[in-house]
């Protein structure tokens, strides 16, 4: 029996994906669990495994086409099994798994060319190409050509209705530059007359961050990027679904800063590594979660799942938006491992080369604005997690110690929790113990 290979739900954040590479050709044998294609979604790439063993008889979605998740991308048949007629089509007869109860192609309704050759679906080649390029479901198009043949303008009409094309107006030089730099024209905001995309717009897009650093001009309107849309949806989902409560505490940082100074040469000498305050923070938080497993919980329906691994996510700010790669099993990982992991993840986050797993595995998040002149802030939970720690700047403060005025370096940390599953006392306990751990580094980081 044939198996439909779908673009899997690549996690909560992902709505669409693009196949970057097919590891197998049509006709190749495949084993269940064997990676068969590489998909890119939301700046991460991941391998997708074959759902069954058999023969990859039909690839429906070619490399480079972006399709919604759950789209059927290929068909695996058992050896000797004949491919069902409905898949004997050229191009993307897109169908999502949800709607695949209805065959996407119903030959009876489909206008056919006079020849009636299988695969020739009464579509002019230009229309077919365009439909393929934009992922148009051909079964939804009624042709206006002779004998109902689908013409290019029919496809364009559908695209225009979905405002996928015709909004892309660009100068010849802008088009050429896009082709040369392999930039999709669709993603560029045109600033010319009536929104025409000019060369300068493509250059600004290519320059990326430098262009955004200046900020968009006042009074301008721009479409949300995919990553921005995901952030927007997730943040409002979190803010409106999870009742947040916030707790703040001041952490005396001198002992940790001093501890770090002492161990720096050792790390440098033995491992050629330089631990940052964040690395100690990650470790301390992970150890504290081990003591308070509720902070590793996720609410799923009516059940509270205490996640088996303590994976600490670190919010990394990028021009396009925030991304949160997580260090796995940080409670059990040594500092050296944490430093290496953290440095690698942050670097790859900035290059957009994280895997999906790396950003999906987090069970608790740390968000630091310590480099800014921000005393403290409240953070929104990164769903489905139920705890997030916010870190402000470190200040020097005058304090009385045994009647003596002393200078202490103080950092304010904030904890946001999901009040549906974590009560104030648990959160307060967690934060207080974290404070103790950070203020007593020798005890906390005894086993390196």
């Amino acid at each position: 029996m044939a198996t439909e290979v779908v673009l899997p739900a690549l996690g909560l954040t992902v709505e669409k994906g693009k196949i970057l590479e097919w590891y197998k050709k049509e006709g190749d044998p495949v084993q269940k669990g064997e990676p068969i294609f590489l998909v890119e979604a939301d700046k991460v790439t991941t391998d997708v495994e074959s759902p069954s063993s058999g023969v990859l008889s039909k690839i429906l979605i070619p490399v480079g086409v972006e399709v919604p998740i759950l789209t059927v991308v290929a068909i695996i048949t058992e050896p000797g099994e004949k491919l069902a007629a409905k898949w004997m089509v050229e191009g993307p007869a897109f169908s999502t798994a949800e709607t695949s109860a209805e065959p996407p192609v119903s030959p009876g309704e489909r206008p056919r060319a006079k020849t009636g050759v299988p695969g020739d679906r009464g579509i002019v080649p230009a229309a077919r190409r365009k439909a393929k390029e934009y992922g148009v479901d051909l079964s939804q198009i009624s042709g206006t050509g002779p004998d109902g043949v689908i013409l290019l303008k029919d496809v364009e009409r559908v695209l225009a209705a979905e405002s996928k094309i015709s909004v892309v107006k660009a100068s010849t030089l802008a088009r050429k530059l896009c082709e040369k730099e392999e930039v999709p024209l669709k993603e560029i905001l045109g600033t010319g007359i009536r929104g025409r995309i000019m060369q300068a717009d493509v250059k600004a897009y290519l320059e990326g961050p430098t262009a955004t650093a200046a900020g968009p001009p006042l009074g301008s309107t721009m479409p949300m990027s995919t990553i921005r849309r995901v952030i927007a949806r997730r943040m409002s989902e979190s803010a409106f679904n999870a009742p947040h409560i916030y707790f703040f505490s001041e952490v005396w940082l001198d002992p940790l800063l001093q501890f770090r100074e002492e161990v720096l040469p050792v790390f440098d000498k033995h491992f050629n590594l330089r631990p940052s305050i964040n690395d100690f923070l990650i470790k301390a938080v992970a150890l504290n979660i081990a003591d308070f497993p509720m902070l590793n919980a996720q609410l799923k329906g009516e059940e509270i799942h205490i996640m088996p691994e303590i994976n600490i996510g670190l919010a990394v700010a990028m021009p396009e938006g925030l991304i949160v790669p997580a260090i796995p099993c940080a409670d059990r990982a040594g500092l050296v491992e944490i430093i290496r992991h953290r440095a690698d993840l942050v670097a790859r986050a900035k290059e957009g080369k994280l895997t999906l797993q790396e950003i999906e595995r987090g069970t608790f998040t740390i968000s630091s604005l310590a480099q800014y002149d921000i005393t403290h802030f409240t953070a929104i939970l990164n769903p489905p997690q139920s705890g997030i720690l916010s870190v402000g700047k470190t200040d020097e403060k005058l304090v009385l110690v045994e009647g003596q005025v002393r200078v202490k370096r103080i950092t304010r940390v904030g904890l946001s929790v999901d009040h549906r599953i974590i009560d104030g006392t648990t959160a307060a306990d967690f934060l207080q113990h974290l404070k103790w751990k950070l203020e007593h580094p020798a005890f906390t980081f005894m086993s390196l």
Partner: protein
Amino acid sequence: MDDLCIIGAGSGGYVAAIRGAQHGLRVLLIEKDQLGGTCLNRGCIPTKCFIHDVKILTAAKRSPVMKGADRVSIDIDKMVLRKRQVVKTMVDGLAMIMKGHGVRVVQGQGELLAPGQVRVRTMDGRRSEESVKYVILATGAKPGTPPFLSVDGHFVQTTDEALDPKDLPAKLLIIGGGVIGLEMAAIYRLLGSEVTILELLSDIIYNEDAEIRKAMRMLMEQQGVKIHLEAKVKEVKIREEKVEIDYENQKGQVEKLQADRVLVATGRIPVLEGIDVQKLGLGMNEPFIKVNGKFETNLPGVYAIGDVVGGMMVAHKASAEAEAVLANILGQPKRIKPELIPRCIWGLAEVGSVGLTEEEAKAKGRRVKVGKFPYISSGAAQAMDDINGFVKIVGDSESGEILGLHIIGQHATDLIGEAVTLMTMEAAVEDLAEAIKPHPTLSETIMEAALDWSGILIHKLKK
């Protein structure tokens, strides 16, 4: 209180006034002379009137089919009168437009006292002070003369006088082989004067493409204009109703020339009357007023546009800057691309050009490919019986970007408009060839040059 005061009602000032009024600003426009400034009164329009007249004369005289053409001549007085009528029509039209837009026009000398403070001295000596939010300085430029020359208006003239001639000099000597010099040379040569040009640089119209310069020089020499390059004028004396000029030639030897009149066309200098640069602390880019990309001076709320800020001294640049400055004042940032400002010459042949010359493009390290088409191969040019000219396209060989377009020949100044439009819209050279051109017209020559650029020329012998 007015929102916007503009000093100078030339091509920059009046456009700014209309745009300001259209956006609901209360506008005060101060002009010491006539609306329309240099372009309308002492520049573009008068020159084009004369050029038109002398071209008709020349066409008639050269016509192989017309009878009695050798007896045709121009009545100078009528030529000047026609020009005055054209100018008057345009100036009156402008006055109506100002009135229609509710622009308050005051005739007098405008003075910038301080940012937001302007004084007007009218011709009858009355003074009034005005407070405004924004001031645009659009005072323009005037003929500049070398220090050793004194313009007497008769023996030694500038364009101000030469465009209002009472008679025709038998021998005219023009100092300066730039656009103005070439245009005046064309007018006077075709009227019948013997014309000599003394140019300080190594070529005439120095900022044009080398091939255009060469073609122009050849054409002028063919038509009897004498051109002395690298000629340094040392002394100009008036003796016995004649002008005597001493100049140093290319070899450093002093030579003498005699003429009935000298026309000084050595460039134009900014008009700063009413603008006390030092007292105001106005930033300068000597000798011009310094502005940034938004045409802001260093004084708050004070802008400057047109000839007074330097750059190309042409009316359409000033008008474009007027549009941009208003957009910036109104908070819709707009910049001007200097490389897209066309250059026009109405000389013995017309020149229309925009963008980089071949030499400039190469110097900038661009991968240059050139496409050309000669007028001689154009049916339209043949039918018009004027086959002197060509179109030259300088394109980026890889991207097809039109880096520059240069035309010399009949209607070059009209034809260049198409190139400017397409370059502004960022068309590639191939786009120039893509459009279907009406036949038989000179517009086909650009298309053919574009085809040549792509190596698929039709109307030319295979290389």
